[in-house]
């Protein structure tokens, strides 16, 4: 890249800045403070350059710190900090469902001789995972965190599935979990899924006149951060704060 003229360098740098900026804002929506989000972001970037070998005989397997371990840790943290047990299950389920959708669309529907992407390739596989995670998270209960957990677990599960398949097949393949670091499908899917949940969820919620508060567990209501919602909470729900 350093050999490119100014326009190309600017384009690449600006795209990276936009991506990292969006990534930071996305992390910021996940029970992380600004500083914690920044720390995770920096750790992801630095970790992108570190690959740890996985001891799997017969298969060259590695896990990248920035694209695999840190997102996985973040997903674990979100599951651990989930407001209710059901919310925990939602995230895990969103992950399993995302992996399955990714497998069904990317490996079952789009294979064979058709080039370069498959018979039904209207969307790059890279974008199927966040769409699936965002949609599942929305269906089982609108949640940015479930979308993020779903996307991260989904892509990583698919990598693990690939590892198991290589092992069962007995061929000498290569598996690099989160191998592209901060640019890997794991991170990209998480960011896009959060944005999707945010944009679709927030827009729908706004159009419907704000979050529905009646009948929600107190723990979830306490997590609502907007002061105007907190002020109204007692009035609309009839419960003291």
């Amino acid at each position: 890249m350093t050999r490119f003229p100014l326009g190309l360098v600017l384009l690449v740098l600006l795209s990276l800045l936009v991506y990292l900026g969006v990534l930071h804002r996305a992390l910021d929506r996940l029970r992380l403070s600004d500083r914690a989000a920044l720390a995770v972001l920096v750790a992801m970037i630095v970790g992108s350059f570190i690959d740890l070998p996985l001891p799997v005989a017969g298969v060259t397997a590695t896990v990248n710190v920035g694209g695999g371990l840190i997102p996985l840790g973040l997903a674990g943290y979100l599951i651990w900090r989930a407001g209710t047990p059901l919310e925990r299950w939602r995230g895990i389920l969103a992950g399993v469902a995302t992996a399955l959708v990714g497998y069904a669309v990317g490996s079952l529907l789009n294979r064979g001789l058709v080039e370069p992407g498959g018979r039904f390739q209207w969307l790059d596989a890279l974008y199927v995972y966040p769409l699936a995670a965002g949609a599942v998270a929305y269906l089982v209960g609108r949640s940015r965190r479930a979308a993020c957990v779903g996307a991260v677990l989904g892509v990583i599960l698919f990598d693990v599935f690939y590892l198991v398949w290589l092992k069962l097949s007995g061929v000498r393949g290569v598996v690099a979990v989160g191998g592209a670091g901060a640019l890997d499908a794991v991170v990209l899917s998480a960011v896009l899924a959060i944005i999707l949940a945010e944009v679709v969820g927030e827009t729908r919620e706004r159009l419907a006149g704000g979050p529905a508060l009646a009948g929600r567990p107190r723990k979830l209501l306490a997590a609502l951060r907007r002061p105007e919602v907190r002020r109204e909470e007692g009035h609309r729900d009839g419960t003291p704060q």
Partner: protein
Amino acid sequence: MGRRSKAWLAALLLLAGVAAWYGFRPDARRTLGPPAGGEAEEHAGRCITVVEPGGRIVDKMARALVPGDEVITADGRHYRVREVRGDTAVAQLLGMDARLLAWDQELATGGIPVQAAGRTPEVAVYHTHSSESYVPSDGSAFIPFNGGIYRVGEVLTNALRSRGVGVNHDRTPHDPHDNNAYVRSRKTAVRLLKGNPVAMLDVHRDGIPDADFYRQRVSGQEVSQVRIVVGRQNPRRDANLDFARRMMAYANRLHPGIVKGILLASGDYNQDLLPTALLLEVGTHTSTREEAERGVALFAGAIPYVLGVGPAPAERPGQPEWSRPVTDPGARQAGVWRALALLILVGLAAGASFLVVSAGGLRQARERFRDLLRVEFGEFFRSPRPRPPDRRE
């Protein structure tokens, strides 16, 4: 959690169970594995013909086109697919591709290579579909984990090296031959990026049954033509398309007919990683590998000049910017600037919409923006003072 959410949960769990059984059943290897034999035959007849509204054939390819996909033919005609009916895609002629023709004309009027640039750049070559092979030479359309396409990549590598260009030819397999292979090869592409390549080429072969459609006599040799594919779902696709245009114009000037055309298809193909990343389809599975090797060797001859890493044409006064190599510091690439402007515009529009939606209205958005300017920039110029507690914590 509402009743509806529980129903969704139950449905998804059921789906998960079925899919897990399907994926890991005893014959799962065959299902997941590279399609061969019967399955190759199953798709053997699959070929989309791109036609003009009058019925004139524009192009053929082994992929499902969607409205909006574009084709730029070797003679500069630019088409956009309007509708797809079965195996026929009707494309509208948008006109002659002005930038391609201008670049071509410039090459016709001069451009004498005089000196080699004193740099040792590297081109990265890899294969997302690592099982792709050529039936007449390799015996099958797919050789798992070690397709004939590696040999084509090797010929490209050697041809570039013989012209003084360094090549990092990566042989990581990304089997099976499916769309998820791009998610797997993304890791390889990013690893290659760490070597600071000047361009990244993902080498494939097509899957249409008619080898004659790719077979051509070029520069006295019987070869398979090369098709350049640019992903439409890449936010910076204009920059990659700029590079593709230059490649086609110069390669076809050097060896008329070697590049079949440019296809703008729905996909990203990991081209968002580098503005000079391209996907090449060298021949089809029914071509002989030798034809493909000869084709890619001729194509390789054009790469050093377009990248500005080999013999370059003489500078002439008034030389248009598009006649300069893609890496020339003086080259003002319109596609690149367009992509930059688009990125900034979309970024600003997305940020503004997000602000309005999350603030709950235009007035609140304005207030938040003012607060942001006051707090962030006001504090920047003021002496440090204790921050008020974060209201979201």
